[in-house]
């Protein structure tokens, strides 16, 4: 008896699952996610027929009715699509997409105005809208009051800054950017001539965190502009190799490699280096 019950229960849950799948597919078709003809309605009806004798609970019968209702919506959509395809408005959406890509904005606007008959409408002031506007201006607080409510406080007056202060803040520099790049490049070449090997982190990491970030920034420019190249080993080690002269490579040889320099990571590397 138990053995007989078990397969029936499995059968029931499988049936419920299949019906729910059909309902979901039908709803996707209704939301224009799929073509209505992608759903095999005949097969769906066969599934409904197969499980119908097993339903005993009200919920199962409701699910059966819902599935049938959803299927009828899909059939209606199939009918609408057939009628639409036989009408003069039919155009393949993909074909249209390609067409839009090729047509200029002016050409498309020109087409649109030819079949556009805009509505004439006059907007006017009414006593009510004038009253509303008057109320707005009457109730509006003076500008000083509104500033006070924002609690902005007094702002300081603009002041002149010394060059030394600007240099300290890093807003300006005494040498140009290209000059700094060249300096870093020659430094890299010197390092390379010593051991024919420049380890990235060894080259970049300095005692100061901001200096480390600045060097990493400069190295990234040297690599992008073709003054040096980078090797990445399987164990994650990174090496730099400077070129004697600038080399311009084709774009398809280039690969972007983001390197994160968080303050924690910098501390770790500082200990190692």
């Amino acid at each position, binding site marked *: 008896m138990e053995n007989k019950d078990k397969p029936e229960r499995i059968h029931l849950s499988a049936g419920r699952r299949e019906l729910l799948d059909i309902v979901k597919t039908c709803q996707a078709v209704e939301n224009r996610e799929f073509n209505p003809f992608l759903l095999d309605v005949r097969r769906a009806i066969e599934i409904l027929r197969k499980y119908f004798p097993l339903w005993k609970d009200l919920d199962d019968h409701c699910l059966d009715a819902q599935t049938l209702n959803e299927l009828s919506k899909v059939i209606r959509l199939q009918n609408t699509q057939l009628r639409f395809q036989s009408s*003069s408005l039919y*155009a393949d959406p993909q074909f249209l997409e390609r067409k839009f890509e090729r047509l200029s904005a002016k050409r498309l606007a020109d*087409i649109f105005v030819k*079949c556009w008959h805009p*509505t004439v409408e006059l907007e006017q002031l009414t006593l009510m809208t004038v009253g509303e506007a008057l109320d707005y201006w009457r109730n509006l607080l003076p500008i000083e009051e509104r500033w006070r409510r924002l609690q902005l406080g007094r702002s300081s007056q603009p002041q002149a800054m010394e060059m030394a202060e600007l240099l300290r803040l890093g807003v300006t520099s005494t040498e140009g950017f290209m000059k700094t790049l060249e300096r870093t490049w020659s430094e890299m070449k010197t390092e390379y001539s010593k051991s024919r090997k420049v380890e990235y982190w060894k080259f970049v990491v300095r005692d100061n965190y901001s200096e480390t970030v600045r060097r990493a920034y400069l190295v990234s420019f040297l690599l992008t502009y073709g003054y040096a190249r980078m090797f990445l080993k399987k164990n994650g080690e990174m090496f730099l190799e400077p070129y004697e002269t600038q080399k311009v490579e084709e774009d398809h040889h280039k690969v972007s490699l983001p390197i994160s320099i968080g303050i924690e990571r910098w501390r770790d590397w500082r200990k190692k280096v």
Partner: protein
Amino acid sequence: MEKESIGKHFYGDKLKRAAHLLLFRRGKMPGARDWELKTKLGRNYEEIVNQLNALLSDLDLEVRKIAEEPVSSPMGVASTSRGETETRFLVGLKGSLTLMEARMCGWRIDNLSALSIAISYLISKQGKASRKDIEKLLAYKFGRWRAMTLVDIFIRSGYLNEDETGLLSLGWRTRAEVDLKSLMTLVLEARPS
């Protein structure tokens, strides 16, 4: 005879009232509903509207009758909560504008071309498509941010409708102002210049 003369005087007076009702915007949408016209002009309002139409046709304008926004019927037949169909009367341009005139009315070329793309794509999808698809299509020509703004503009002005699931459909203004058949024909015939 007496009745006829009274009728003529009656119509002349009501023609002005009909013009005011149809031309001056009062609510969110321009024009007037059939029951509004019936209340203000009387039972023979359609006859008055026809007379107004004849007068306006000399100015390249016409009175149009459109079905009100369908509430629940997906087949496009408008009906009220009581199950009756409702119509709105509008005054529109009989002919068409030139591109220069449209620009002088405040329309940008980009907006017009985006609108033609959105409408024709929606028609090709049988009147419904997801907002994401349309924005993607517009983004190719106008950029992502502009595409999003354009769709918002079209929804606000009534050219497109958006439902709660993010599906876009043709709005009341498109149905009232755009000759869909000729739009599709012209788009399909167009060749890149």
